[in-house]
């Protein structure tokens, strides 16, 4: 048995901690378990490293159905839903797509629970002109099996395919121009939704960037509408994307949302889930390793042994087939803004961990899943968006890493793409990135070409491909992180060319990556490991 494995079997000892979520590595601390794609590394970290854990899951509501009914009957700044319904009216129910939550939750999905209650109320009030539209914006269309899983067999059989379908942002007859904001931002929205007497949005707000006006104004819009804020300058002006009060992205979307509200009657149902990403068999992955029980250690050893015998594709399949155990912790309905504010407050309760000060070096474990690769591969562009886009932005106040500091990513960085889901990513990675990594240049020179490429449009509309412009948005999403971070090092990258093309350094191991980072920021550099998953956000003083 190796030294590392022996250490992993050691019992608990008292630690230097700041609350339950922030732990400092001592001389005899246990190694930490760190996600790296489909693998879980077991790494000794330098003494003094700050390790930040997610908060324990907030207890789920005992009776989610009752909470949803209460929200519908006691909405914020709006009449109860039943009072807004009348026989013969046209109703469109828009639903968040498969990018939320992550990974997909066990069935019944919370959307199914809400829809069952909603459809019951609509039926009781004589409303039968109902369409269910997946608000996928420029995301890939969900497959039939995914759609069925999301709403359950009964609703699927009753509505699919004529009255339950994906929003098609490229349907020439399917979009309506609602107008422009005072700043000239276009707002084009799904025709069925615009021409409905009432739009009910069923939302899962996984992170504070989601929900609110983003639901309708982005979920049901087209390329011309989304490009005005999915651009490098908007993203760079966010501090952070996850703090709506300081996010230019949220500001621009709210302006578009105001146009939506002028033309459409929207009843917003927004939910917050806890962070119970792991079931009882794997919940140790989110906990402090110093406090592992004997059984936790046995489970880890069994998992490590099993994973070591499998190819990456099989590991990916296994991980993606384990649904998350999320539970409903809040549900509000009514007008978009007050509903969203309440949900954000609840999310902050779940995710926000207070940190004292920034670090010179921050370690980001990149897991197997992102919003854009459900049932697929986390390709290099998505590794980039997870690191420089999402994880860098998971803060309020200041980024966890100091300006000009180093970020270490743990991921194999395999050069693999899903031809069916991410065809335009392949061209972006192989044709454009070798020419430039400058987001502005990419945007101005190539974005429209990809967005209007007839093949990519066909693959989006008739297949399950992300829109041709999507890899650009993913690249722009990382602009804030790229501007802020001085160096990115990938620990454990299985090849040299992917990190090189992304503009990152490569290291064989985490230890080597830390040495490289120290040589960049200084030998006495402070180090923080953000223990994702589950989701956690830093409130940095």
């Amino acid at each position, binding site marked *: 048995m190796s030294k590392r494995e022996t250490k992993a079997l050691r019992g608990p000892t008292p630690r230097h901690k700041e609350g339950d979520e922030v732990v400092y590595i001592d001389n005899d601390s246990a190694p930490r378990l760190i996600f790296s794609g489909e693998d879980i590394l077991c790494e000794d970290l330098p003494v003094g490293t700050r390790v930040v854990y997610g908060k324990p899951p907030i207890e789920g509501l005992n009776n989610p159905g009752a909470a949803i009914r209460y929200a519908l009957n006691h909405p914020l700044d709006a009449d109860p839903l039943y009072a807004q319904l009348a026989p013969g009216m046209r109703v469109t129910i828009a639903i968040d797509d498969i990018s939320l939550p992550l990974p997909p939750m066990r069935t019944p999905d919370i959307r199914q629970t809400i829809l069952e209650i909603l459809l019951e109320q609509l039926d009781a009030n004589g409303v039968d002109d109902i369409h269910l539209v997946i608000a996928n914006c420029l995301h890939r269309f969900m497959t039939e099996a995914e759609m069925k899983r999301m709403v359950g067999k009964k609703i699927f059989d009753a509505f699919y395919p004529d009255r339950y379908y994906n929003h098609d942002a490229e349907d020439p007859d399917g979009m309506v121009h609602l107008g422009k904001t005072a700043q000239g931002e276009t707002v084009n929205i799904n025709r069925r939704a615009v021409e409905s007497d009432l739009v009910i949005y069923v939302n899962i707000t996984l992170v504070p960037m989601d929900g609110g006006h983003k639901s309708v104004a982005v979920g049901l819009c087209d390329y011309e509408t989304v490009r005005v804020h999915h651009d490098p300058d908007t993203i760079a002006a966010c501090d952070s994307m996850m703090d709506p009060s300081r996010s230019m992205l949220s500001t621009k979307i709210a302006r578009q949302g105001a146009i939506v509200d002028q033309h459409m009657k929207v009843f917003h149902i927004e939910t917050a889930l806890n962070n119970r990403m792991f079931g009882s068999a794997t919940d140790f992955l989110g906990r402090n390793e110093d406090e592992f029980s004997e059984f936790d250690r046995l489970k880890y050893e069994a998992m490590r042994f099993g994973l070591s015998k499998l190819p990456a594709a099989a590991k990916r399949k296994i991980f993606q087939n384990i649904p998350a155990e999320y539970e409903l912790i809040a549900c509000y309905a009514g007008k978009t803004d007050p509903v969203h504010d309440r949900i954000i407050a609840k999310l902050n309760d779940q995710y926000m961990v207070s940190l004292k000060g920034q670090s010179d070096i921050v370690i980001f474990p990149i897991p197997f899943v992102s919003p854009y690769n459900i049932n697929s591969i986390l390709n290099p562009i998505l590794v980039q968006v997870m690191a420089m886009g999402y994880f860098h932005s998971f803060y309020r106040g200041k980024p966890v890493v100091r300006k000009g500091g180093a970020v270490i990513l743990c991921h194999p960085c395999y050069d693999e793409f899903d*031809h069916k889901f991410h*065809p335009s990513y392949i061209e972006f990675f192989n044709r454009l990135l070798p020419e430039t990594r400058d987001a502005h240049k990419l945007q101005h020179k190539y974005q429209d070409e990809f967005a*209007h*490429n*007839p*093949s*990519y449009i066909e693959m989006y509309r008739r*297949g399950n491909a992300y829109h041709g412009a999507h890899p650009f948005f993913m690249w722009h999403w990382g602009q804030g992180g790229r501007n802020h971070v001085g160096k990115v090092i990938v620990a454990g990258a299985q090849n040299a060319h992917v990190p090189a093309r992304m503009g990152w350094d490569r290291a064989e191991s985490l230890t080597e990556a830390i040495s490289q980072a120290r040589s960049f920021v200084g030998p006495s550099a402070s180090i923080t490991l953000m223990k994702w998953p589950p989701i956690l956000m830093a409130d940095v003083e």
Partner: protein
Amino acid sequence: MAAAAFYDLDGTLCRTNLVHAFAYNARNQQGLLRSITRTLSTLVSVPAFMAADFFDRRLFNDIFFRRYKGESEDRLRYLAEELFENVIKPAIYPGAYQLIKKSRQLGLRQVLVTGAIDFTAIPLARHLGIDDMVTNHLEFVDGKATGRLLPPVMAAATKASWMRIYAEKEGLNLSECYSYSDSMSDLPMLSVVGHPTAVNPDFRLKNTALQHDWPIIDLR
């Protein structure tokens, strides 16, 4: 610099192929007995056509177009409009219209590059709003088909050669051009442009497209 979208026809924009066109002519011969004989003969030959096409498109052309020998040019041209209305038009893939529309919105010139015979392709090109086209032409002597094609015979590498010459003549930048085909025999036509796309591909082309990271679309 200007650019174009080059389309193969059979199997790419519509589900018919050369054999459908020939079978329609065979079925509409003058005289019932002649129609039955020609139709049966065509049916019997289908496996041979498929085998020839699998190995080499030029071999297929040699064997297949011999079947036209003795056909009247007037009659073939007369039947072409009927053939289009009754057989080809209903067989156009639904996605083909949208693909061409989007492509035209990009300002691309729409060009058909097909091994089909001119008189069968012309009505379809008109219907789809194709700007330019190159097809195969049967050789006629004294108003009767000889069973041979006039050179250059549009197939495989010849299509790519024609596209190169066409692009040079028309001032098109091939690296900005698009090309669409369903068949492995059109690999040269796909390889010569900057934006190749496999459409409803057969097994071999699908694998090739995956290896080259080309988009794969389904217009059916």
